[in-house]
């Protein structure tokens, strides 16, 4: 201890120039920063080989810290590629059951009072493989269609009020400017409750693949409905029954009936460390941590099991805990070096308890495809390797 202190002293006193100020080889100041060349984590992508633009990429949750997803690692799901939109030429048109059809430039929209709020976006297909029995080998493949960002924009209610919506309006049909003109019908109650017209993500303009220059954000609802590259809002008395809200994003039950307009993403969680593909250095202390979220409001509690789900212990939540936003949970663990099944479950402020896969199968069968939120278990082997179960 004493020797160490002395050598520190020696270093800092013997030279005028502190070592930390030495120019580093290869790195200079940059107008727009990049991560360290030693950091390699990236999105896992699945793109159609023939139709360029149809596909998805997943957030590498197992490699991330805290709750904010770096914009470069936000998951993607596109049905017809990423359009290049010049912001000065972009317009949002609101028409239908409004006093007068009206169009807004990006400058017009930014002139409205704005809000900044963290929210998760989750594709309702997230976890579909877990339901189908092909468990993802790592947290990216099991839960990577979830990302969490700080969004800035105008409340949709503010803009709809300015457009003077008529009393018989019940739906807002939102349409993107991508090649397929992706469209979804949004109930008016949600539009007026907490929906946002978002132009910024994590402090800078939206990324192109997240809808630049303008997207809809429906906090807590399935990601598909948060239309990107938003250019048109059609206020109407009824839903349009678009391809995406009928042929897809409907949940088929064993009796052949399917749930339509199943928007909410229910409480879910995943342990990201240790998780599939990682390896523990050895027995002894480890912090178990992960992400939890609920589309119905705030996460109230996260519990972690070290015996596959028989017994549960309450984890600590890193604050602040905000509605419809991801929260990081942590719990210390003294690993005895024995094979162990770890799992997490989220309980939200409504009292909803994240169910097991068996409970979901019993409620809506194996072919419901969307909105899977079952408890995820990871198996820690005696050699420290972690695999999916």
């Amino acid at each position, binding site marked *: 201890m004493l020797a160490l202190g002395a050598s520190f002293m020696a270093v800092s006193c013997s030279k005028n120039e502190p070592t930390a100020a030495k120019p580093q080889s290869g790195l200079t100041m940059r107008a727009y920063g990049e991560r360290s060349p030693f950091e390699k984590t990236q999105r896992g992508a699945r793109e*159609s080989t*023939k*139709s360029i633009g149809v596909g998805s990429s997943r957030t590498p949750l197992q490699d991330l810290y805290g709750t904010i997803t770096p914009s470069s690692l936000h998951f993607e799901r596109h049905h*017809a590629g990423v359009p290049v939109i010049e912001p000065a030429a972009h317009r949002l*048109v*609101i*028409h239908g059951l409004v006093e*007068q*059809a*009206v*169009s*807004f430039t990006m400058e*017009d929209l930014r*002139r*409205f009072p704005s809000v900044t709020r963290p929210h998760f976006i989750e594709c309702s297909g997230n976890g579909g493989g877990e339901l189908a029995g092909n468990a993802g080998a790592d947290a990216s493949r099991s839960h990577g269609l979830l990302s969490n960002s700080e969004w800035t924009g105008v409340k949709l209610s*503010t803009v709809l*009020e*300015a457009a003077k919506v008529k009393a018989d309006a019940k739906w807002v*049909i939102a*349409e993107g400017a991508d*090649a*397929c*003109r992706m*469209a979804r019908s949004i109930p008016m109650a949600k539009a007026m409750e907490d929906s946002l017209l978002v132009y910024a993500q994590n402090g800078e303009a939206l990324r192109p693949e997240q809808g630049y220059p303008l997207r809809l954000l429906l906090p807590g609802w399935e990601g598909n409905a948060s239309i990107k590259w938003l250019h*048109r809002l*059609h206020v*109407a008395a*009824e839903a*349009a*029954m*678009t*391809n995406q809200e*009928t*042929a897809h994003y*409907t949940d*088929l039950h064993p*009796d*052949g*009936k*399917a*749930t*339509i*307009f*199943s*928007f*909410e993403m*229910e409480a879910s969680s995943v342990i990201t460390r240790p998780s599939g593909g990682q390896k523990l250095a050895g027995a002894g202390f480890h912090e178990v941590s992960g992400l939890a979220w609920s589309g*119905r409001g705030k996460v109230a509690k996260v519990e972690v099991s070290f015996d596959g789900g028989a017994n549960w212990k309450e984890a600590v939540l890193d604050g602040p805990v905000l509605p419809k936003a991801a929260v990081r949970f942590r719990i210390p663990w003294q690993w005895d070096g024995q094979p162990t099944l770890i799992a997490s479950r989220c309980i939200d*402020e*409504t*009292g*909803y*308890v994240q169910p097991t896969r068996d*409970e*979901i199968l019993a*409620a*809506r069968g*194996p*072919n419901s495809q969307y*909105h899977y939120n079952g408890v995820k278990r990871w198996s820690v082997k005696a050699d420290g390797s972690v695999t999916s179960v």
Partner: protein
Amino acid sequence: MFSAILVVMVLAQTPMGKPVSAEELRALDITVFPDGKGLPAGKGTAAQGATIYKAKCAECHNEKGEGRDQQYPRLVGGVGSLTTAKPMKTVGSYWPYATTVWDTIYRAMPYETPRTLKPDEVYAVTALLLHWNGVIGENDELNEKTLPKVKMPNRDGFVPDARPHQKLKKSK
């Protein structure tokens, strides 16, 4: 509270946005509703649709709408499969509204050149897909009046969201 009222008052006095003319809107508004509102005038039959399909759709969706690889969705078949272990969701077996078929094709197809088909061509290809699925006859004409009246096989197959599947201590 005071500031919220102030904002509403100030907004009411500040002109935000620009009126859009009916003509500008016609080019932009492509919404089609299940009752047929928004459908342009036009007509077509399955027999007419076959030529267009061969030239503009078959390359991806295959000769008879059976799809190709995993990427190009199957457009026919699957009736009766929804309650089996391997449900096959297609225009014929799953889609509740015929207007959605028209809208999907006009809005998004052909994949590389969407919104280039004329209304008559869209009615014709829609008629072909409905005919292949046994919903209409080969020479039945679809137009803006008849299309919304077509009853799809799975029209009554959808139910409202009944989640959560568990009791909550407080409801929102």
